[in-house]
Structure formats: structure tokens, C-alpha cells
């Protein structure tokens, strides 16, 4: 069977060789279509990768914040037992239950507060104390994020090791705000991190809990996962347990969703050229069947069944598709390299460093699955385009065909 297919393939190659120019033009048509689709998708992929890399560089991707959530109508609070539950989720390497609040300084500087166990939060956030030390458990000591610490030191005279009064806002029975002063002692300022923890005040959780008398459970659990590939899995597990899960990974998901749509729209426009390529194959094969009518009639008289005739036409289409696909892949790789080697420096020199993030390493990214898909599309397209010409060929009346 396969030997017979090989015979038919050899014959198809010979038939194609008898009309080289038309084959070349058709192959070019398909190649341009495939290259257009791969080119636009690669450009989209390049932008996507740049955006993801930018998020990755500026955020902590392996950090997840689990907050109370809802599942099937039941609310799930973060209680000490649920914290234990969360710790047992696979890929969770560290975690810290936290309370959130907000205080103000005497100069009315807004102070976002996190209450947590000092060791746990240090581990989960990889906190580094730049000056001073970490607070001790059960004390009224505090550490400050780099930006907040710098600000309070510079503008409000805060000193490491000296008590620093802060205001806790409360509301009385009639709903009127009332500020109450509590004394904390800043004992350390953290290293800069370039994230929101640069502007927080971190205290022992017991101290924060004491100032939130009506609080049930914790506000959130900060979770560290082994690697960024496990983040989505852990987030899914948390959602199954009834908690909400958030983090920088959501931004990446949002970028991916957005880019999926953008790339799809690009690809649809580029796909028009593929339709043109398909019509070219159909046209070529219709002409080819017309030209070979006599040969098809002779073949039928010599014993070719309708299936053999269809196979003759479709094998030619398959070969056109493979040639077009391979040429299209080569063209898209060349297009991609030209974009990266010439296009990127050109854009950077024209628009300057503002776009350096967007045009980071490469402007266009082609992945192996894209190449396989390109070849696959070319082959499927050419076979689809060949169905009608093949059907027409198979339905020829051998006697009439031999007369032509």
C-alpha cells in the first residue's frame, strides 16, 4: 500500500515538474499567505513576551494573596485552621497570615498597616532589613517599607529605636470618627523592593488584632510558591478551597487574554491572504485537471479507479501545500530576523528609550509550535482547495476525456 502511494507520489512530482512556472507561482502564493499569518502572530507573540517579561521583572510572580472568598454560596473566612489547610496545598513553600489596617501619623500621613508574625512574613516576602532589625514577637515594635521609612525619617523626624506615635481611627456609636493614639517603636527599615511593600508599616499581628476588636479571622494569607509555573495551579487549588487568590500572575493572565484577542484579529486579517492562496491552488488544480483531461481519461481506460484519480489530484495539492508551507515558514523566519535585526534598532532610534521596554529583546518571536501550525495550515488548505478539482477529475467520462 505504502509502496503504491510512493509510486503515485513519484508520478505527482513528475506531473508538477511539467508545469514549473505555475507551480512556482502557486507555491509563492501559499508561502506569502503563511508568512503573513506567521509574521503577524510572531509580532503579537513578541509584544506579548515583552509585556509578560516587563511584569515579571517588576513584580513578584510566585507570591499569591489568598483572601476570604465564596464558593457555592458559602463564605470562607481565613481562620487559624484554614491557614493550616492552605499551608498543606502542594507547591506552597511559605505562608504568612496577615491582618490589614490603616493608621495615620500625627502629620496625617496615611500608613497602610500589615500585622503578621515577624518570621513568617520575612520568609514569605523575603524581607531584608536595611537598617535596624526585625521586630520581636509580642512587642509594639515595627518595621517600615523603604519608601515610607525614608519619608517619615525625612519629613516627620522619625528615628529608629525611638517611640513614634500613630493614630488609630475609630468610630463611636453614632458613627463619628475618633482618633486614638498608640505608641509604636520603629526598629528597622526594609531594603527597597519596588513593590507595594515599600510603603507599608509592618507590626506584630497581635498588636494589630488588638486594634481591630470586631475582626473575625485574618484578612489574607500571603503564600509563596515554589516556582512561577506552579502559581496558576496553587491559585486554582485555593479557589477550590473557597478562597480568592490574587497576585501579579493575574496581570500576566490579563495580558495573555488581551494579546490572544489582538493576535486573533491580526491573524484573521492575515488569513485573508491564506484564502487567496487557497483559491490559487484551486485555480491551479482546476486548470491542471483541464489540461490533463486526456491523461486522466487514458488512466481510467488503463484501470485507474475514481479513487486513484482523486488521489492523483490531491497528491499534487499535498505537494503544493508542503512546498508552500515550507517556503512560508522560511519567509516568516527571514521576516522575523529582519524585524529583530533591522526593525528594532530603527524603532528604538526613532522613538527613543520610552519604547525600550516594549521592544526589549526581540520584536518578533516565532516558536516551534507556530512553525508546525504554519505547515499544517498550508497542507490542510491545499487539500481542501483540491477537493473540488479532484472530484471533477474523478467524475470525468473516460471516453469524452480521451477525445479532448
Amino acid at each position: 500500500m505504502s509502496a503504491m502511494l510512493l509510486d503515485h507520489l513519484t508520478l505527482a512530482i513528475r506531473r508538477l515538474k511539467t508545469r514549473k512556472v505555475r507551480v512556482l507561482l502557486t507555491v509563492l502564493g501559499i508561502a506569502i499567505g503563511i508568512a503573513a499569518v506567521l509574521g503577524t502572530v510572531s509580532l503579537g507573540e513578541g509584544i506579548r513576551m515583552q509585556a509578560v517579561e516587563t511584569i515579571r521583572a517588576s513584580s513578584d510572580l510566585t507570591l499569591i494573596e489568598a483572601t476570604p472568598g465564596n464558593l457555592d454560596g458559602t463564605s470562607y473566612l481565613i481562620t487559624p485552621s484554614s491557614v493550616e489547610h492552605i499551608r498543606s496545598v502542594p507547591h506552597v513553600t511559605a505562608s504568612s497570615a496577615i491582618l490589614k489596617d490603616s493608621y495615620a501619623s500625627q502629620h496625617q500621613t496615611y500608613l497602610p498597616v500589615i500585622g503578621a508574625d515577624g518570621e513568617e512574613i520575612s520568609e514569605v516576602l523575603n524581607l531584608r532589613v536595611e537598617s535596624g532589625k526585625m521586630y520581636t514577637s509580642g512587642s509594639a515594635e515595627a518595621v517600615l517599607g523603604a519608601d515610607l521609612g525614608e519619608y517619615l525619617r525625612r519629613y516627620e523626624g522619625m528615628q529608629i529605636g525611638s517611640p513614634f506615635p500613630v493614630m488609630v481611627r475609630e468610630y463611636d456609636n453614632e458613627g463619628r470618627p475618633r482618633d486614638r493614639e498608640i505608641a509604636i517603636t520603629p526598629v528597622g527599615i526594609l531594603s527597597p523592593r519596588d513593590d507595594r511593600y515599600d510603603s507599608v508599616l509592618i507590626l506584630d499581628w497581635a498588636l494589630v488584632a488588638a486594634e481591630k476588636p470586631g475582626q473575625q479571622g485574618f484578612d489574607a494569607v500571603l503564600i509563596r510558591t515554589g516556582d512561577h509555573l506552579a502559581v496558576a495551579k496553587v491559585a486554582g487549588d485555593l479557589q477550590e478551597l473557597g478562597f480568592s487568590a490574587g497576585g501579579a500572575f493575574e496581570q500576566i493572565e490579563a495580558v495573555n487574554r488581551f494579546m490572544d484577542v489582538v493576535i486573533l484579529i491580526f491573524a484573521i486579517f492575515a488569513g485573508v491572504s491564506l484564502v487567496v492562496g487557497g483559491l490559487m491552488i484551486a485555480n491551479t488544480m482546476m486548470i491542471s485537471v483541464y489540461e490533463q483531461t486526456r491523461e486522466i481519461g487514458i488512466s481510467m481506460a488503463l484501470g485507474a479507479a475514481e479513487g486513484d484519480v482523486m488521489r492523483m489530484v490531491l497528491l499534487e495539492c499535498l505537494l503544493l501545500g508542503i512546498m508552500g508551507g515550507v517556503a512560508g515558514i522560511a519567509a516568516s523566519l527571514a521576516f522575523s530576523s529582519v524585524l529583530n535585526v533591522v526593525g528594532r534598532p530603527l524603532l528604538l532610534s526613532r522613538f527613543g528609550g520610552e519604547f525600550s521596554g516594549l521592544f526589549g529583546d526581540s520584536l518578533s518571536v516565532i516558536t516551534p509550535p507556530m512553525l508546525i501550525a504554519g505547515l499544517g495550515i498550508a497542507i490542510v488548505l491545499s487539500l481542501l482547495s483540491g477537493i473540488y478539482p479532484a472530484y471533477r477529475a474523478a467524475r470525468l467520462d473516460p471516453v469524452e476525456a480521451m477525445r479532448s
Partner: protein
Amino acid sequence: MFRGNAMTTLLSLEGVTRVYQNGVKALDGVSVSMERGELVSILGKSGSGKSTLLHILGGLDRHDSGTVAFEGTALDYRNRTEIIKHRRNRVGFIFQQFNLLPSMTAIENVEYPLIFRGVPRSDRHSRARVLLEQVGLSGRIDHYPTELSGGEQQRVAIARALVSEPLIVLADEPTGNLDSATSAGIVSLMREINRERGVSFFIATHDRDLAARADRICTIADGRMVA
């Protein structure tokens, strides 16, 4: 290969009629039979229905009424599989225009029908070579049709018609495009093959001299057998 001399009926036609869509009655109640190993010529002018008769016998066309039977069994023209098998296994064709495929060499043309029969390449090649030797073209096997004379092309076509070892070779004006000397050679070759291999020949011609060299002559006029 030799199928023996025992005279058994190879094919029989009973009241075969063929009317084309334009109303032309190409065959009008044709009845004819043929024994195995016979070389029969069917003599008639152009348009007399010879070719139609050959096409029906070869499974390339169908009749509208009557029966066509091979080896005692009626051919069912609605059964495509049966008709394809009939074309592949029982008949070989020789045409006036030779109908060789121009992109193939002589030996490839002879091998070609065997591709549809799934015969392995080496087997095809050796069978084609033997036949080309028998038709006297052993030195021309790698020539393309355009490099061969008319007589040589028809010899290749004869070899091609025989390559699938058919029961009968249907020849439609096989010498129509050849000069008289070459024609005589082709007829002699068909006679020789008929005698040596026992293959039946059904030769449609308008040439009385050619027809006269057959075992039997049937004459057709206006779609009817007249003798």
C-alpha cells in the same frame, strides 16, 4: 500465459443498444459473440458504432438495453467496483492515437497500468521489459513517446495493453495513424501475440485488408451488425 485452444465463449452480446443523450443511436440491437483466443475484426465506416461497441466491451461506456456477458456472466455496469475490476483484469486497450503519456518513457508507459493494480516496482519493470522485447523495442525502452515513430509508439501501446495479462485486447483503429508498411507490421505483431499468448483480439477498423487477416470479420453499419 497460454490459455489453450479449447473453444469456449469469452464474450457474448445480445441485442445491445446504445442511444446517446443527443438522440443518436450508436448501437441498435447488436448481437455478437467471441470465443477465447479468437482474433475478430469489426469492419465499419467512421461513425458506424465500432468505437462505442469497443468502449462498452471495455467498461468505458454502458449500454441502454441488451446484455453483455463475459465468460457467461452478465456485466453489471452500475456496479463501479465490478467495472473497474473488469477494466483492470480482463481487457487491454489499443487506440488509434496511441494515447501514450508524454511525460513517461516507453517502459514507464508500459508499467503504468500495473501501478493501479498495486504491482511492486521491480515486478512491473521486468514484465514491461519482457513485453517491450517481444514487440521489438528492447533498444528504445528509455525513449519518450516524442522520440519514437508512430509504429514504435503503437508497439509500446500494444505492450501496455498486454502488461496486465488481459483476456482480450480491444483495438480501436490500431493502424489508423500509420502508413501501410507499418500497419502490416502492427497487424502481424497482433497476430503473433494472439497465436503465442492466446490472447483474444477484437479489432475495430475500416481497413478491409487489415480486417481480412482476422479469424473472423464482423461488419457493422449504422449501429447494426450486417454480416
